[in-house]
């Protein structure tokens, strides 16, 4: 359930997130030793870079077992400046959103360097991995992680090339009905696994859809991510017979290195088998 919040936060923050990277406060020191992250994806990027030992605080939504013992500093929308300051970070990694702007700017004013990164589409996500690597003096590792994601995506596209190409509705929430649109990383990954996005009319990353629009989209498969479909009821009223698949993990809700795993999950859900 926690992971679903990522998408809810993303859906809220996306329209305002025209800025892809923003620096606030004093310059980032050459040697970053104490990092606080304000989004699980950012923690996962730091972990994947092999710098997990430098993390000193994460959000209450972080569910990676490697950060289970770390202090929690609030959520993406409501980081607690007092708790963050108490951890004496020399770098804060944040995701820009209208809701967290106040506390994040306060932290920068109080003398902590802040780097804010948008994680809306795959190009941004791939770039952010490299940029955080560079900030931490792990540029090569960052390049390698980026290459891994790029390679996996290319591999998936080749596997999916021969078809079939089912119409898929990728659903992140039911109240309201939030789906993957054509923009945004989830829509891009759908294309990578050879699916036709049934909600491709919408050029927003995570549009809210009316049930009638969902029925009109005539999906072959409804893939739900991050929640259990309601028992005893059609996931989408009016589509009682459509194939419903639940993603094996919530990796797809983590725009970062875990998208490699998310891509596998998505392939299995869409095609009913692992990528050969």
């Amino acid at each position, binding site marked *: *359930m*926690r992971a*679903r*919040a990522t*998408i*809810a*936060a993303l859906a*809220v923050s996306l329209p305002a997130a025209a800025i892809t990277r923003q620096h606030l406060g004093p310059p980032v020191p050459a040697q970053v030793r104490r990092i606080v992250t304000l989004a699980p994806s950012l923690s996962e990027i730091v972990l994947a870079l092999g710098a997990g030992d430098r993390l000193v605080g994460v959000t209450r*939504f972080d569910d990676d077992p490697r950060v289970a013992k770390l202090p929690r500093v609030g*959520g993406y*929308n*409501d980081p607690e400046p007092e708790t963050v300051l108490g951890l004496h970070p020399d770098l804060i990694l944040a995701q820009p959103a209208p809701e967290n702007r106040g506390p994040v700017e306060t932290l920068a004013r109080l003398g902590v360097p802040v780097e804010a990164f948008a994680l809306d589409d795959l190009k941004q996500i791939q770039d952010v991995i490299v940029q955080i690597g560079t900030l931490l003096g792990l540029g090569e590792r960052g390049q390698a992680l980026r290459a891994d994601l790029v390679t996996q995506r290319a591999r998936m596209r080749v596997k999916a090339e021969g078809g079939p190409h089912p119409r898929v509705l990728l659903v992140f*929430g039911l*109240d*309201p009905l939030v789906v993957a649109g054509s923009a945004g990383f989830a829509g891009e990954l759908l294309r990578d696994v050879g699916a036709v996005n049934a*909600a491709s*009319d*919408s050029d927003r990353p995570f*549009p*809210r*859809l*009316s*049930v*009638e*629009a969902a*029925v*009109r989209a*005539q999906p072959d498969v409804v893939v739900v991510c991050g929640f259990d479909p*309601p*028992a*005893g*009821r059609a996931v989408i*009223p*009016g*589509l009682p017979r459509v194939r419903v698949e639940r993603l094996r993990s919530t990796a797809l809700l983590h725009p970062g290195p875990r998208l490699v795993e998310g891509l596998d999950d998505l392939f299995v859900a869409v095609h009913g088998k692992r990528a050969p």
Partner: protein
Amino acid sequence: MNRSATVRAAIAFLALLPIVVIAVVVGLSLGAGELSLGNALRGIEPDATVLFRLRVPRVILAAIVGAGLSVAGVALQALLRNPLADPFVFGLSGGAAIGAAVSVAASGTVLGAASVSFAGWVGVLPTQLAAVVGALAAALLVFTLGRTRGRLHPERALLVGVVFNSFASALVIALEAVLAPEKTQAVLLWLAGTLGYEPGPVLIAAAVVVFAAALILTALAGRLNLLALGDEGAAALGVDVEWTRLISFFAASAAVGAAVALTGLVGFVGLVVPHAVRLVAGPDHRVVLPASALGGAAFLVLADAIARLLFRGLGTEPPVGAVTALLGAPLFVLLLRRRT
């Protein structure tokens, strides 16, 4: 029912029935895309599914809820002798909100799992069940606190209801601070009042509850008329004031409970429709009650059609409660100015 009341009721029905029919036709023909009736009748998809599985049940739901909220509004305005009374005045909205918020917060816990299985057994969603339980508990609380020495004091009950609703919204806001963002969104959407898609048996059950409530209230209409004279005046004319209050209170609460369970808090219907009907049909409850049921049904069906049409290009729709408030607030002011 004397002759003039019968005649006025007949006129009101004749005037309102075509409006209901028009509302239903509009409600069935407007939505997230063009619908071909011919295709739908011939079973061609997606038109058939859109018409028969989505729009028909939704128009029926809107009609049931609109009728239920309107008759409850009439009854509570009469009961409390207060034109500003609406269906949620007895703390019903606050109680329902607490119930819904707690149920959303509890999802994923043992309590949540238990309520899911129980609600599934009843055939509704856990949030709906929790909202009804919360609403009825709040109504009982307010009803009890509004009584002294075995008598209900309308002003007292009204004040307790208002204060309870404020208390409840504070509690819900406090609860939202610890909810994950997507859960908060679900609660907010529900609080705004949303028409969804309910399975047939649920619709039938709700229709039975609302119809029974409307029938009971209409049967009590003569007594409700006399309550306008004040408790003593009504009692002097042979009305058992306490009994009338109790029965109509529970009938109204049952109708509101059904509405709240299915749609959350759809505001203004129970306020605007009764006043509009009184303006046309006069204050006689024998006419106002059934006419409000029809008027409420038409109003909510139309408001829902507008909701579906409003952001149609984006493939999404606002909650119907937002539309009823946007329509209802100016309409209410207009009615007030006409009356004075």
